[in-house]
């Protein structure tokens, strides 16, 4: 927890648990509302968080979302254990997806998750080790509106 952290909370995510998928992002949205942030910022954070949460549910075994609120930004660190991503550049391409047809039937697997997260973030950092897992760290500023 950093010097200027106003609030920090860690949530766990279970891979392939489609009943609970999205719960963490609903909770994060509630926290941001309680913190009185601008609704546009809240929507950006909640959407990015939801895409990242779904990526763990769909593509990984288990993971954590670390939420941090500072006076100027929201920092989300999504850390998972799973297959990892072999080619980060390819994964960032719009439309690239390895999701199965089952996932597509649930409305995911358009290959737009990571590109959309990047678009809505002020800072985006993706790191992965094949066979181990993936870490995504995004920052969304909230003091400029």
């Amino acid at each position: 927890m950093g010097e200027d952290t106003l609030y920090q909370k860690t949530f766990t995510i279970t891979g392939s648990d489609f009943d609970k998928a999205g719960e963490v992002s609903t909770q994060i949205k509630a926290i941001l509302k309680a913190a009185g942030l601008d609704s546009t910022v809240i929507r950006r954070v909640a959407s990015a968080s939801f895409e990242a949460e779904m990526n763990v549910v769909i593509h990984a075994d288990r993971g954590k979302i670390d939420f941090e609120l500072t006076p100027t930004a929201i920092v989300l660190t999504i850390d998972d254990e799973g297959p990892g991503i072999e080619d980060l550049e390819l994964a960032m391409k719009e439309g690239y997806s390895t999701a199965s047809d089952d996932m597509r039937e649930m409305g995911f697997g358009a290959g737009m998750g990571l590109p959309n997260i990047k678009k809505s973030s002020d800072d985006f950092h993706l790191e992965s080790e094949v066979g181990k897992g993936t870490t995504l760290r995004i920052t969304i500023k909230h003091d400029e509106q």
Partner: protein
Amino acid sequence: MKLTDVQKHLNAKYLCLDGSDPEISCCMAADMMSDVLAYAEAGALLITGLISSQSVRTADVSDAAAVIYIRGKRPDEKTIKLAEDLNLPLLTTDECMFDACGVLYKAGLKGVC
């Protein structure tokens, strides 16, 4: 337009009815939730054929006013319960996607783009 007007235009049934009758500012028709998450505006009506719980989660996260399912589709009870918990009205219409959008467009609603 109010949600009750949408209900009348599409001869829709309520699956989850919240206390309020929200103003519908615009529409978003999609089966891919990433599209909704990327482009949705607050107060939008989500028109979709996707009945998984993710349709409700996506609508909530993107501040949609309500969700209407096409072709008489209905999500399962668990998903309806989730919408109740999130105070998100759900409707279902027998119209297909194209006709549902056409009717609402003619009635004055515009898409999010």
